């Protein structure tokens, strides 16, 4: 009956602008990266020399590249084994308090809306060896100043702490939303049966939020694989390349050093590694990830 909503010309005109931008800025770049990863192009000259898989061979033999892979690994391990337990703990705590719930929820989210660049600067100041907050606290207990960002032993840890500070609240709000959507009757029934608050949290709430925890872990892994701006702002990958991650290494090569082909090979490897890690995670741990019906 409805001819005007079947008009193919109007349909095309409505679709086209967004679709074009999507194809140019999402789909084309994937193939372009794949193509240039097989060349030794410098990014500007007219001649593009096809070199097969040699960029990938080079990456696998490049010690500094492996340091950056290892640092992405630290990002993943830190978020999964330190951040996620904290996220779950604090979400359960916030869900179970009556007073100040709104304040906690609003305040913990605040760091996640701010620019990573500005947070990097702010924390750089906190880590400052002479007048920064951390060393002042350590000074009170009589510990010598630590060069947080310029000591190879601490630089990566310092970045991880800052990153956790920024994103923990973001995930708490997600998990909290899931907890609050669980029907209250389940909890009340258990309370009548005499289950303690702790028992109800671990035996009832926790199993029900496993799917959202799984989503949080997946998002943390994806976030860990693309971390870059925090590193660039806080340490620029130093000292001595000790905080380099794959994304910063890619940028350093392609844009700063004009090794566009090699940079794209690293971009492709970021794709592949992210895919491998997420698929592995899905296969090993996310089997119970079915939808829960109440």
């Amino acid at each position: 009956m409805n001819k005007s909503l079947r008009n193919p010309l109007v349909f095309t005109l409505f679709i086209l602008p967004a679709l074009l931008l999507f194809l140019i800025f999402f789909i084309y770049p994937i193939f372009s990266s794949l193509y240039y990863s097989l060349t030794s192009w410098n990014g500007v000259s007219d001649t593009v020399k096809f070199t097969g898989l040699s960029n990938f061979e080079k990456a696998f033999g490049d010690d500094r590249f492996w340091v950056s892979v290892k640092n992405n690994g630290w990002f993943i391990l830190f978020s999964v084994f330190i951040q996620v337990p904290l996220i779950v703990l604090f979400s359960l705590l916030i869900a179970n308090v009556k007073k100040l719930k709104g304040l906690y929820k609003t305040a913990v989210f605040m760091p996640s809306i701010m620019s990573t660049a500005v947070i990097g600067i702010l924390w750089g100041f906190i880590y400052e060896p002479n007048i920064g907050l951390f060393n002042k606290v350590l000074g009170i207990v009589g510990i010598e100043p630590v060069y947080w960002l310029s000591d190879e032993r601490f630089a990566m840890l310092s970045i991880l702490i800052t990153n956790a500070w920024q994103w923990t609240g973001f995930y708490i709000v997600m998990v909290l939303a899931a907890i609050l959507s669980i029907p209250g009757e389940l909890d009340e029934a258990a309370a009548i049966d005499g289950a303690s608050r702790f028992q109800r949290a671990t035996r009832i709430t926790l199993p029900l939020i496993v799917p959202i925890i799984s989503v949080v872990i997946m998002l943390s892994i994806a976030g860990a694989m693309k971390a870059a701006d925090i590193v660039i702002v806080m340490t620029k990958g130093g000292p001595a390349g000790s905080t380099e991650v794959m994304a910063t290494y890619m940028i350093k090569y392609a844009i700063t050093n004009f090794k566009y082909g090699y940079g794209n090979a690293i971009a492709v490897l970021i794709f592949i590694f992210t895919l491998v890690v997420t698929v592995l995670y899905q296969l090993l741990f996310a089997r119970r990830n079915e939808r829960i019906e109440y």
Partner: protein
Amino acid sequence: MVRSLKKGIPHAALLGYLVVVLFPFLFVLFSSVKKDNNAIALNPFGIPKEFVFNNYVEAWVNAKISTYFFNSLYISILSSVVSILLASMFAFAVTRMRQGKWNKILFSLVLIGMLIPNNALMLPIYTIVRKLHILNTHWALIIPYIANAIPFTIIILAAFMRSLPSEIEEAAVVDGLKAPGIFARIIVPLTVPAMVTVFIVNFLGNWNEFLLANYFLSNDELRTLPVGMVQFRDQYQMNYAQMSAGIVYSVLPVVIIYAILQEKIIEGVTAGSVKG
């Protein structure tokens, strides 16, 4: 006694967490009105003994925070508005127009965009921007920002438009409206609440963006706030009081927006990430 203690433990833990979240802000706020590094070093935790507001004047004028601020503002607003416009047209077509399987195919295609780690696409986008001869102009940020926001925006707006009853168009068609009219006069006004949420999320994303802004612009006058701040830090490395004033400038607008709209921001961001 034991009961109130039991009730107190969660609050003690949560207040501890709150201090960890908020103290860095307080530290910077206090430092921004202290005289110099020495004043900060002597009294890093407390309220300043004398308030030096000159740091704010210095940062705004000398460090050109004002220029960066307005660059960020207009780039973020323009990009967010245009991506909402284009995405809502797309969402309208795939949810309300009748093109059989095309609706589904096109929508699924755009969904893929949510799975792509966009950092890894930075190099090809750099090349595209250079080939378009817009490198080192504001367009080098505006166009990629618009494109980047499209998948998320389409998903949220399409979900919202799907939930509108189909009788709406039927009545409009009877009244003689064509598809563009239905879109502009009926669907868009009804979708405004979802658009507000998406606008805020996109605006914050653009306002905070660092990588493209850092590598696609080299002219200092064109820089956005996050990049300008990093430069400012590098230049005035030793003056922490002024640097803190700069941080306050770049954090303040976001905190104000957040204070007013926090419900919507949290809602929008969690909706997007759960679905992504």
